[in-house]
């Protein structure tokens, strides 16, 4: 029961940090700091996102393509890869990578600030650590999640296409045509639904995991050991929440508001 209490307390605190951060994003955005953080944690994660997305696209295309080709349906491959990436794979892999590159770093960095009294120093100067340290990180990561997901979607489809052409003998034109048409096909409030539902999902998830990383850092106590504990907790909760959020939002987008 003790861990349950602690978990609820942690969740409550993370929500508090998230809400107050949103307030600060409007009242006092600190754009210069946000831009620097977006570069450090977002753009520097781009190479790994691209590599992972590219290979995932190739693997997906090969696995599904072989099955489809057995039934002579290989020209559907573009549809499968595009839909899978836009709806699920792109957001999912981007967020998982960001847990490793950014969320853990937020928890470690802020946790170290906490145990070395830097966070206390901000409070003593009447500077709210949530506004000064957490809000710029949360904003930066949320924005970069959109961008990285879009890149992952594009590169995944590219990887899938290359396998389609080289391994399954599908003309590039056919693959791309099908891929783009299927994305444009279904509209939602005038926008291509699958793409935007996926991006929205990624953005929301990015916001949540960034908040968790910052909140865990701010709660760290007890030296290096405590920082390690914060990082571990942040990573575990983030991975679990990525899946939960993904399911819930998919349900909303394709069941509750099915078009």
């Amino acid at each position, binding site marked *: 029961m003790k861990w349950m209490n602690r978990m609820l307390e942690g969740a409550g605190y993370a929500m508090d940090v998230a809400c107050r951060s949103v307030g600060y994003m409007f009242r006092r955005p600190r754009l210069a700091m946000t831009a620097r953080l977006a570069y450090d944690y977002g753009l520097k994660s781009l190479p790994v996102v691209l590599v992972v997305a590219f290979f995932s696209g190739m693997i997906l295309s090969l696995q599904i393509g072989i099955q489809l080709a057995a039934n002579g349906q290989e020209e559907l491959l573009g549809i499968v890869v595009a839909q899978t990436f836009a709806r699920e794979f792109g957001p999912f892999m981007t967020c998982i990578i960001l847990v490793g590159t950014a969320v853990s770093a937020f928890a470690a960095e802020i946790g170290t600030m906490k145990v*070395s*009294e830097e966070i*206390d*120093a901000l409070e003593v*100067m*009447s*500077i709210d650590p949530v506004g000064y340290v957490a809000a710029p990180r949360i904003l930066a990561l949320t924005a970069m999640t959109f961008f990285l997901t879009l890149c992952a979607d594009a590169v995944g489809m590219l990887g899938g296409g290359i396998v389609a052409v080289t391994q399954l003998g599908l003309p590039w034109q056919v693959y791309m045509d099908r891929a783009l048409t299927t994305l444009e096909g279904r509209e939602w409030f005038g926008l291509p639904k699958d793409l935007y539902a996926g991006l929205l999902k990624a953005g929301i998830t990015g916001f949540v995991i960034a908040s968790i990383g910052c909140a865990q850092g701010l709660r760290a106590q007890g030296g290096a050991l405590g920082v390690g504990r914060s990082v571990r907790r942040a990573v575990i909760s983030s991975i679990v929440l990525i899946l939960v959020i993904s399911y819930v939002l998919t349900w909303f987008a394709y069941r509750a508001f099915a078009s």
Partner: protein
Amino acid sequence: MIEIDNLSKTYGERRILRHCSLSVNRGETLVVIGASGSGKSTLLRMIIGLATPDDGTILVDGQDVHALAPAELSRLRRRMGYLFQSGALINWLTVRDNVALPLVERGKTVDSEIDDRVERALRNVGLSGTEKLMPSQLSGGMRKRAGLARSLVTDPEIILYDEPTTGLDPVTAHIIDQLVVELRAKLGVTSVVVSHDMEGVYRVADRVAMLYDGRIIATGTPGEFRDAGDPIVRQFVSGALDGPLGDRSAGPRPKSASPPNREEEGAPPQGSPNKE
């Protein structure tokens, strides 16, 4: 100016402070002495609201620190300065930006004035010329002095110093002590200094309080402390090896016939190497 009444604090099973009462008058420098781990930092943290007492109240300028709304606490803290034991500089800002931070965040000062005040604060602590360095490029003592410059730059009325001279060389320590004295003389700053450097205590203190076993066991002028009769106070002040402090057995035991302990923690004897 600061009224501490019946303050108690427990961490887990450990009672750090019990029923401490203490007051600091306006314009006075009170030095709190005590062995490391006796709860001096905890006491300072509670005065500025970083830690919450289990029991008791702290009034700063008539306001109950732990009953204030966040905005009011924030306003009160703007009149206070706090020197952290390790300096606590923000790691990604240069020394200059660290010292300027409280002014920049208050947003009331124009840029040229900020530059002037930062320069003056750094000069006061003997750190001119380090403006562009990062905290990781400073030694421990320099970090602490930069932290001191940061707490002085806003001209606070009340300053809490957590071991301002520990880890500094004797000359720099003297300079910092001189600064504390000057701040009181020229600006009428009210200070609480936590220290175990007795030489410095005699230089800066108007009044001294000693923390031992969670209680304030003595208060008085530096002169009274120098000639103290209480065996605990006398041992701490003189740094003697023999006495009730640091003794393994429970309770004060004011006798001197026993052979000297070699593994004293509180007060290592001068000149004798640390034996393992």
